[in-house]
């Protein structure tokens, strides 16, 4: 019998190739006869594009062709679409200015592609690109999120640079509750703009085969099928059945590789036009300029309470920066992934949120690890903390008092979601214990004795993951369904090939999904191979984001595996000469009840493919099953993060002395992988809270365009993490899983800022809380 592997920290199957240098990322692929592409990009944030003179560049060595935005327009390529229609409160549709594959008449952010140079080598393409001369007539740029609505209009169709004005919740009831409340806490905040910076820069190779007229696009994508759908149905590059997208090993995504960008689209178009394979690999500077950025909100919030500190109402007004164009999912991020999460873990009866989303002359902003939910959590967990300070109560106790209780589930929030299950207090208690909250006063006294400041901060977060019930997503404006596909192919020898529409770019699906399927069949994890990332191999799927892969993709595989077992029972019934109802399947064996007769999983697989003795009249041969799983609800991972810091008041340098994360992710297949996801998420949360900030100057030039200027978390910036789990099993998917990929980035930032402000004794320090800001706050506090 093979050991059950669910819940075990099985070492990752994918690692051997990565640790030996045998990974195969897009940049590692070279095709025979390939050419290289380099993009000419706008140096201006906002300018009219005049003549593009390519004559000099065209005569340079190795140049094959130069294609411009004007040719894109002449070829009538569609624009890059945004997949989520948001309606404003007046019922009007969001404004969606054309997002051209390359700019033809006007550029709207620094780094926007204007032309593509194709040459025999990368160096030749890059050299020639410097000789493409573009006439620009500079226009005033709109950069600031807060001031965007009063700036000059970037698009005639979007007056006040406003994309939409959205609302959710009951305005009148919320206003009334705030009006009559005993206490109202007010908070204005900026959620800092971030640059995702997956370590592998985006890359693509477009390879048009003149013989078959098939276009193969290798690209760094989290969702190759979605990319194919967009490139075919919307941009109309090629018919869907003639476009194959392969996303091989991908070096991290964090959201930034969900989207369909100009570069791979231009490459695909150019490859068809020129009949050659073209490769492009972004230089890091291009990633900074032209990958979709994250966050960038400005908000005002009010939390109303009664005398006892019971939450009565929350009112929020947010301005969200979309950048210059609506990226693939951009419009959904500050609305359905943000406003709906403002209830947090609490029974706040009235919530009303307004979101104005605005265009600026900056790179497009879209989902970045957490996407909307970190912004919601930061707002809620900061204002709750401020309320506790104002009321003079322990922040843990104010949270506890207002938490939704286990008996309240399913719990309908005032902002559209129905939480299925959770036990928030259990996570809170466990985190308080692991963080030794009770011993904090002593540690603080010790720090003070050494001339240091010490603070502690909590955050009790919730997120909605497992995107998403298709009908609900559709009703909310999504352009696609959000189910997932899975196929379980049992091979004649009994080994199994699993195909999934999700994509692994660090998450370890090749191991987790193998554990899931191996356990169901009672076979070894080594006998299961997980295949993903190739539209030529697996069924249509929606990809990996929103912590959806296990809860939705894993559920599809679970259903498909059940179908395999069902068919196996029928085959076994025939071979064992019994009734199907009397066949049990357990530990890899089909047993006839009340007998000692059985068949192994492998024997049944063999019989299915060599059907000599087989119920061929009733049953098709073969043993491969598919499932398309559409979730009935979101999943709701939740937990408590606690951060403790010590600050040197002379320098403002803040050390995280302990970071505790206690999370409820439902059923866990591989604890090692899950903890790794928490570590990585928290690291990005610490990055947002203390280090990272995308800065544009007033003219829209990116000031943080390299790893020298944009502060990435490095090994010596971060602490070790203390990670704990609690479990309430998701009620509505067959795996019981809720998703774990984003929690770290969602839960951690407010815990950190709560800790730092607690240490310094000030109301607020904006993110990132750099040593300089902390030092200034300390000086002001002392003055």
């Amino acid at each position, binding site marked *: 019998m093979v050991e059950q592997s669910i819940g075990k920290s099985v070492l990752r199957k994918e690692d051997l190739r*990565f640790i030996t240098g045998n990974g195969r990322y897009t940049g590692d692929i070279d095709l025979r006869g390939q050419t290289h592409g380099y993009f000419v990009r706008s140096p201006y944030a906002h300018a009219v594009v005049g003549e593009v003179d390519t004559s000099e560049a065209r005569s340079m060595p190795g140049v094959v062709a130069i294609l411009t935005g004007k040719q894109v327009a002449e070829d009538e390529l569609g624009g890059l679409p945004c997949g989520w229609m948001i309606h404003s409160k007046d019922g009007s549709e969001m404004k969606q200015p054309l997002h051209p594959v390359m700019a033809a008449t006007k550029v709207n952010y620094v780094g926007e592609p204007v032309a593509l140079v194709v040459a025999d080598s990368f160096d030749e393409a890059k050299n020639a690109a410097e000789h493409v001369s573009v006439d620009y007539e500079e226009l005033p740029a709109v950069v600031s999120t807060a001031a965007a609505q009063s700036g000059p209009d970037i698009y005639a169709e979007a007056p006040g640079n406003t994309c939409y004005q959205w609302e959710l919740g009951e305005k009148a009831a919320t206003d009334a509750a705030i009006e009559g409340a005993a206490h109202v806490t007010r908070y204005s905040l900026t959620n800092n703009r971030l640059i995702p910076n997956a370590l592998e820069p985006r890359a693509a190779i477009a390879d048009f085969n003149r013989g078959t007229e098939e276009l193969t696009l290798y690209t760094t994508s989290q969702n190759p099928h979605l990319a194919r759908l967009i490139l075919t149905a919307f941009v109309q590059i090629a018919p869907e059945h003639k476009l194959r997208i392969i996303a091989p090993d991908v070096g991290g995504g964090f959201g930034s590789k969900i989207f369909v960008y100009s570069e791979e689209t231009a490459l695909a178009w150019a490859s068809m036009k020129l009949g050659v394979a073209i490769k492009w690999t972004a230089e890091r500077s291009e990633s900074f300029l032209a990958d979709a950025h994250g966050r960038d909100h400005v908000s005002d919030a009010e939390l109303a309470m009664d005398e006892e500190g019971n939450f009565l109402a929350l009112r929020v007004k947010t301005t969200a920066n979309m950048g210059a164009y609506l990226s693939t999912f951009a419009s959904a991020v500050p609305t359905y992934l943000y406003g709906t999460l403002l209830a947090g873990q609490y029974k706040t009866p009235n919530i009303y949120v307004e979101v104005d989303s605005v265009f600026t002359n900056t790179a497009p902003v879209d989902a970045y690890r957490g996407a909307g939910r970190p912004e919601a959590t930061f707002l809620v967990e900061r204002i709750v903390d401020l309320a506790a300070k104002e009321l003079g109560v322990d922040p843990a106790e104010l949270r506890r008092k207002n938490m939704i209780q286990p008996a309240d589930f399913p719990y309908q929030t005032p902002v559209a979601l129905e939480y299925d299950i959770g036990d928030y207090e259990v996570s809170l208690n466990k985190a308080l214990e692991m963080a030794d909250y009770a011993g904090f006063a002593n540690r603080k006294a010790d720090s003070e004795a050494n001339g240091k400041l010490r603070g502690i901060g909590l955050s009790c977060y919730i997120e909605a993951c497992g995107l998403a019930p298709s009908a609900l997503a559709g009703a909310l404006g999504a352009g696609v369904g959000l189910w997932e596909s899975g196929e379980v192919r049992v091979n004649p020898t009994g080994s199994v090939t699993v195909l999934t529409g999700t994509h692994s770019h660090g998450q370890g699906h090749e191991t987790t999904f193998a554990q899931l399927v191996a356990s169901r069949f009672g076979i070894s994890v080594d006998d299961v191979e997980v295949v993903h990332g190739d539209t030529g191999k697996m069924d249509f799927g929606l990809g990996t984001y929103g912590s959806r892969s296990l809860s939705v993709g894993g559920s599809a595989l679970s259903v498909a595996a059940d179908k395999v077992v069902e068919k196996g029972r029928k085959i076994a019934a025939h071979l064992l000469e019994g009734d199907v109802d009397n066949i049990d399947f357990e530990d890899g064996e089909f047993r006839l009840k009340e007998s000692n007769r059985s068949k192994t999983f492998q024997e049944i697989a063999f019989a299915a493919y060599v059907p000599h003795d087989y119920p061929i009249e009733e049953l098709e041969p073969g043993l491969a099953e598919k499932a398309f799983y559409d979730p009935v609800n979101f999943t709701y991972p939740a937990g408590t993060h606690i951060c403790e810091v010590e600050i040197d008041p002379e320098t403002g340098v803040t050390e995280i002395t302990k970071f505790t994360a206690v999370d409820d992710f439902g059923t866990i297949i591989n604890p090692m992988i899950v903890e790794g996801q928490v570590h990585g998420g928290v690291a990005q949360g610490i990055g947002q809270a203390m280090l990272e900030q995308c800065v544009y100057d007033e003219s829209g030039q990116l000031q943080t365009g390299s790893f020298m200027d944009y502060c990435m978390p490095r090994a010596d910036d971060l602490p070790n993490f203390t990670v704990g789990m609690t479990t309430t099993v998701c009620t509505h998917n067959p795996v019981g899983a809720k998703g774990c990929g984003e929690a770290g980035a969602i839960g951690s930032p407010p815990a950190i800022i709560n800790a730092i402000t607690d240490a310094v004794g000030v109301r607020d320090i904006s993110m990132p809380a750099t040593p300089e800001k902390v030092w200034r706050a300390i000086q002001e506090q002392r003055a």
Partner: protein
Amino acid sequence: MSISVQLNVNGKSVKLDCPANTTLVDLIRERLELTGTHVGCDTSQCGACTVHLNGRAVKSCTILAAQCEGAEVTTIEGLGDTDNLHPMQEAFRECHGLQCGFCTPGMIMSAVDLVHREPSINERVIREGLEGNICRCTGYHNIVLAVESAAKKMRN
């Protein structure tokens, strides 16, 4: 202008002509097709391209091939293979010190050099020693554990 360079890569002698501005990483990736060494930036800041040059970790994106005349270069492919893993490779796997794997070859090469170089290995030394290698995925926690564990094995 083209130059001729002779060097030893992963125990094999290599002699080739290349443009004078060819970097070591280009030589490794494009000419020798050893794609385990990665490029993550254009400012010598990320460490994804780290290899050993005469036994010391260097960022191969900042070294010209021309500077490597007569040198011994070891890349991740030369450190150990599936059947014969280096203790550092093994420890990264055992401690889950990698997720997407993109930083991993450079991180492992830096870590091996760190253990060779530093008389005593502890969390602080590892964190400071790997400061030049960015990992966006792991939060470094398990990388630190991996290096601690490999250091023990390497010293036995």
